[in-house]
C-alpha cells in the first residue's frame, strides 16, 4: 500500500465498511441464473423498463443541471436573510423517505393538488404520465447536484472571480471563464450522482406516477414487480442496474482528470 501510513484500526474499519457494501452485491451476483441471464435482461418488459429508465433519468438530470447550477450559485455566492433555512429546505429530498416525496409531489402536481387545478385549466395532465416519472426523479436527484456544487464553489473561493472582475470581466464572463471551469469536476460528479439517483428512484415514482409498461414502469419498478412471480428476472435486472450504476460512476471518475485540466486552463485564462 502506498500513501501516508494510517493507524491499523482505520484500515480494519475501512475494510469492514467496504465488505459491508461489496458482500451484498457479490451475494446477489451469486443468485443470478447465469445461463438465462441474457434472456432475462432482454425480455420485452425488461427492455421497455430499461429504455424508459435511461430516458427519464437523462431528462431528470437535465432538469437538475438547468435549475441546480443557478441554485448552487445563489447559495454559495450570495447571502440573504433565511438563506440557511432555504438551504435546509432545498436539501430536504435528500433525507425524506422517497414515498413521502411522492406524496408531497402528489399534493402539489396531482389532479387534486395545489397546482393540479391550474395545470388542468392549462390543459396539462401529468397524472400517470412519463412526465410524472421525470418530476419524481428530478425531485430526489436535485439536492445531489446542488450539494456537491455548492461545496465546491465555497472551497474554490472568490479570489479568482474578484481578480477577473477587477480586470474588467463582466458577471457572465466571470461565471463562464472562471467559476464554472473551477468547479467543473464537482459539476460533473454532481451531475453523475444526480443521474444515478434518478436511475434508482423508486418510492416517489411508485406513489406519484404509477406503473405502466413503457410509460411509467422504470427499471426499479419492474424489479419490484417481477420479484412477485419471477425472482430470477428480478435478480438479473437488479444486477443490470448495478452494472449500469458502476459504469456511470466509472465514467465520472475518468472525466475528473480532464475536468481538473480544464480548471487549470480556466484559472490561467481568468488570471
Amino acid at each position, binding site marked *: 500500500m502506498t500513501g501516508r501510513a494510517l493507524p491499523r*484500526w482505520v484500515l480494519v474499519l475501512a475494510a469492514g465498511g467496504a465488505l459491508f457494501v461489496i458482500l451484498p452485491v457479490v451475494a446477489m451476483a451469486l443468485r443470478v441464473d447465469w445461463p438465462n441471464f441474457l434472456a432475462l435482461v432482454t425480455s420485452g418488459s425488461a427492455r421497455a423498463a430499461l429504455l424508459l429508465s435511461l430516458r427519464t433519468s437523462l431528462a431528470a438530470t437535465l432538469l437538475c443541471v438547468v435549475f441546480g447550477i443557478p441554485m448552487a450559485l445563489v447559495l454559495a455566492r450570495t447571502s440573504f436573510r433565511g438563506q440557511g433555512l432555504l438551504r435546509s429546505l432545498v436539501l430536504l429530498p435528500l433525507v425524506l423517505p422517497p414515498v413521502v416525496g411522492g406524496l408531497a409531489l402528489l399534493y402539489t402536481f396531482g389532479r387534486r393538488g395545489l397546482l393540479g387545478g391550474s395545470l388542468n385549466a392549462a390543459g396539462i395532465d401529468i397524472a400517470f404520465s412519463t412526465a410524472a416519472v421525470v418530476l419524481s426523479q428530478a425531485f430526489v436527484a436535485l439536492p445531489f447536484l446542488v450539494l456537491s456544487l455548492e461545496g465546491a464553489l465555497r472551497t474554490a473561493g472568490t479570489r479568482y472571480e474578484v481578480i477577473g472582475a477587477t480586470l474588467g470581466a463582466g458577471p457572465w464572463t466571470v461565471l463562464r471563464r472562471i467559476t464554472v471551469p473551477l468547479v467543473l469536476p464537482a459539476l460533473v460528479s454532481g451531475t453523475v450522482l444526480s443521474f444515478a439517483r434518478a436511475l434508482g428512484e423508486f418510492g416517489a415514482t411508485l406513489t406519484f406516477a404509477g406503473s405502466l409498461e413503457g410509460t411509467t414502469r422504470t427499471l426499479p419498478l419492474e424489479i419490484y414487480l417481477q*420479484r*412477485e412471480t419471477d425472482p430470477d428476472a428480478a435478480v438479473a435486472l437488479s444486477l443490470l442496474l448495478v452494472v449500469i450504476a458502476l459504469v456511470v460512476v466509472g465514467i465520472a471518475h475518468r472525466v475528473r482528470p480532464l475536468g481538473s485540466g480544464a480548471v487549470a486552463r480556466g484559472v490561467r485564462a481568468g488570471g
Partner: protein
Amino acid sequence: MRGSSTGRDRSRAVALPVLLSAVVLVTAGRSADAPDTGGAVSDSGSVTVFAAASLRDSFTELARQFEQENPGTRVVLTFAGSSDLATQISEGAPADVFASADTRTMARLQDDGRLAGDPVDFASNTLELAVPPDNPADITSLADAARPGVKTVVCAQQVPCGAATAQVEELSGVRLSPVSEEASVTDVLGKITSGQADAGLVYATDVQRAGEAVLGIGVPEAADVVNTYPIAFLTDAADPDAARSFVDFVAGPEARVVLEAAGFGAG
C-alpha cells in the same frame, strides 16, 4: 496484521467485533416488548404470525382475542405483501404461522417444504370497483371504467389481485385499458383516495376499510372470482402447539365473526 501491533491496537481490534456483536444483539430483537422466538430454545407461549397486509385490522383484533383466551401466550404480528413474506420465510425468517392472501403463494412455501401439514382456507375476498367519493367520472359499472378518458388503475397480473382482475375482465367481456398497473392493491387504493385515478379494482375488504374515502361499486362478475386466504403453521415453528392452536382459532367460528365484519367471505 503483523505481530508488531501494540496492546492498544490489539484492544481496538478486539473492540470492533465486540461492538458489532453488541449492535447485532441489540437490534436483532423484533421489538422491545416482544419476546424473541427465533432462538433454538423453545420459548413456549409465543406465536410469530406473518400475515398478508389485507389482514392487518382483522388479525390485530384476532390476536387480541386469542391472547385473552390463552393467558400467557403472546402473538407477534408482521404484515406485508404475501409474496414478500413468503420470500422472507424461505430465506429463514423466524415465523411460526403464515397467512397468505392467495393459494399460489402458500403453494410455493408448501413446495419448499416449509409447511407443517396442509394449509386451511379461512377467508375469501372478491373484487369491487372503487371510485373517489364524488365519483368524478360518473362510474356505475365495470364498462364505465373502460370508457376512453377514464383513468382506471388495476393491480399488475403478477400479483393476486391482478390475476383476479384479469379473470373478471374475461368473465365480463369488458377490456380495461388501465393507466397504471400497480404492484399492490394498497397502491391502487391510494390512487383512488388521492383522486389521481377515477376508478380502480380493489378487494371488497379494502373498500370497507377505506370507509368514507372511497365509494364501492359492485361488479356482478367479480362474485365468481374468489380469492382464497389459506393459513398454515410452519415446520420451523418454535412452539408448534401454540402455532397450531392459533391456526385453529383463525379457522374457527369466533374468528369468522371478526373476518366477516371486515368484509371477508367464508374460506
